[in-house]
């Protein structure tokens, strides 16, 4: 089963990346034009989200009714429900970074694959930022055993 899971993850990443290219979302200019409400607004990103969510609604409705995957493995959907400062501050910082360069994690990795050198800089800084949070979190947990553990479930 693990080999098949690896195969489907590869297919998913590939189709996701091609979707980003086809939709134009690998272009930071196009993303910035969507975020520029006061300028010449390009609504394309909204339709990308709409198309993706249109399919996603069906897929996750099916997933929610199942306890196992089509390969027989466990269905691991996030179960965290708390809306806290951490979620809001984190999303705010992400949004600022997204606005500055017009890049978010997916398109940055695809741009790397397209041979863009500047994307390498972005990805290195991003991985550095992620590690920083993890290191600080571990240090805090070390001092305070009651501190909440870093969420490892990806959303």
């Amino acid at each position, binding site marked *: 089963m693990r080999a098949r899971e690896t195969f489907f993850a590869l297919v998913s*990443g590939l189709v996701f990346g091609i979707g980003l290219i086809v939709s134009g979302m690998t272009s930071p200019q196009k993303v910035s034009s969507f975020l520029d409400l006061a300028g010449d607004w390009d609504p394309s990103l909204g339709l990308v989200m709409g198309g993706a969510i249109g399919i996603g609604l069906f897929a996750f409705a099916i997933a929610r009714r199942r306890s196992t995957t089509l390969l027989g493995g466990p269905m691991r959907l996030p179960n965290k429900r708390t809306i806290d400062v951490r979620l809001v501050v984190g999303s705010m910082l992400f949004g600022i970074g997204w606005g500055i360069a017009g890049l978010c994690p997916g398109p940055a990795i695809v741009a790397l*694959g397209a041979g863009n050198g500047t994307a390498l800089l972005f990805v290195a*800084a991003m991985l*550095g930022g992620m590690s920083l949070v993890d290191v600080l979190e571990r240090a805090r947990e070390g001092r305070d055993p009651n501190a909440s553990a870093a969420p490892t479930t990806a959303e």
Partner: protein
Amino acid sequence: MTVAWSAFTPWSALVGGVLIGLASAVLVLFNGRIAGISGILAGLLEPPSADTRWRLAFTIGLVAAPLCFALLRAWPSVTITATPLEVIIAGALVGVGTRLGSGCTSGHGVCGLSRLSPRSLVATGTFMGAGFLTVFLARHVLGIG
């Protein structure tokens, strides 16, 4: 607001969006996982575990996407106009922010909203709002970018 109709690409946006939705569907239905790219990348920074293989496979798929796309169409060249300093600051903010907020445009924006998760709705509203505000300040107040 003026809509830039000449720049608006509704069909390619919709088709690309559907592909992104299908990719997320494949990952959740076959692997039981959320296609959250920031989470997948952050997971690769952890010591190797049972999850390393699928995360690596997904990431390789993303990296290989331009090559596969180029087999049918022209090479998808990407132009980043931000200065290196801006790119580094932006990257660091995206890294710290997605880790604290447990997700990005894919995990919260696509998968989370598809799951009708209130947490993801708050996250998506927040990062979209922050993105709108950042671009507004940069372009229309500070006059950069």
